[in-house]
């Protein structure tokens, strides 16, 4: 089957794709600007923001173009994202000196109303439903 507009997920998949795309663009643009303007100020924070933007982009693409492979990739990306939010969130509270500037994941995403923490949890809950995997498989090329 050739890929068409119908290959895109409906329902929660579309919502997740849009939200992840927004985060990819905002985190990516912000980190690109920070890295270009003054990377030495907070190299760890800015690198983590760039990394989070890459994860968001991978997740958005997986939700937008579902297939067996993109389901596995999306699960992997969201597990890494969740681990990142928890690790960076805890580290930013325990070692403030490491983060002179905020990342998307600092203090568990408090700067973004904790959406960065809620997003991978909601995404994984949806991805791991049996019907979701079937829906991804049904959209294979």
């Amino acid at each position: 089957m050739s890929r068409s507009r119908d290959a895109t997920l409906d329902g929660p998949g579309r919502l997740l794709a849009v939200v992840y795309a927004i985060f990819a663009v905002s985190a990516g643009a912000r980190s690109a600007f920070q890295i270009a303007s003054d990377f030495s100020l907070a190299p760890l924070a800015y690198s983590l923001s760039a990394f989070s933007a890459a994860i968001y982009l991978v997740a958005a693409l997986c939700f937008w173009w579902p297939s067996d492979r993109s389901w596995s990739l999306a699960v992997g990306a969201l597990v890494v994202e969740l681990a990142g939010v928890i690790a960076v969130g805890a580290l930013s509270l325990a070692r403030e000196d490491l983060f002179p500037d905020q990342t998307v994941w600092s203090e568990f995403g408090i700067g973004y109303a904790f959406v960065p923490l809620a997003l991978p949890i909601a995404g994984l809950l949806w991805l791991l439903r049996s019907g979701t995997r079937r829906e991804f498989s049904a959209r294979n090329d």
Partner: protein
Amino acid sequence: MLAAFGITIVIVLVGLAVWGLGLFAVGRSPNRPFLIAVALVELELLVYAAAALIALAVDDGAESSAPLFGYLFLSLVLLPLVARPGAGDARTRWDSATIAAVCIAVAVVVLRILSLQ
């Protein structure tokens, strides 16, 4: 003046988000009045972006203009992308939720623009 306009848009966007979530909660796809309201707020965003650019040109605030351009661009493209003009009956209740989420995102973008001005 521009700040008051921006805050008004944020309030309208939050109202639209609540409306969209209400439609989602009762299992309805975006209806015509909701989509007209989305189109009107997009028009407001266009006027606001034009006013912000004129203010930037007059104030010569070139130093912080790169993020401002990015935020203005984002504020304009998101709603048309998810409102899907021409989708017709293909929309579902999840489109209501998606538009609501984007309304919140655009409201945050406008707040960021306000913080730069």
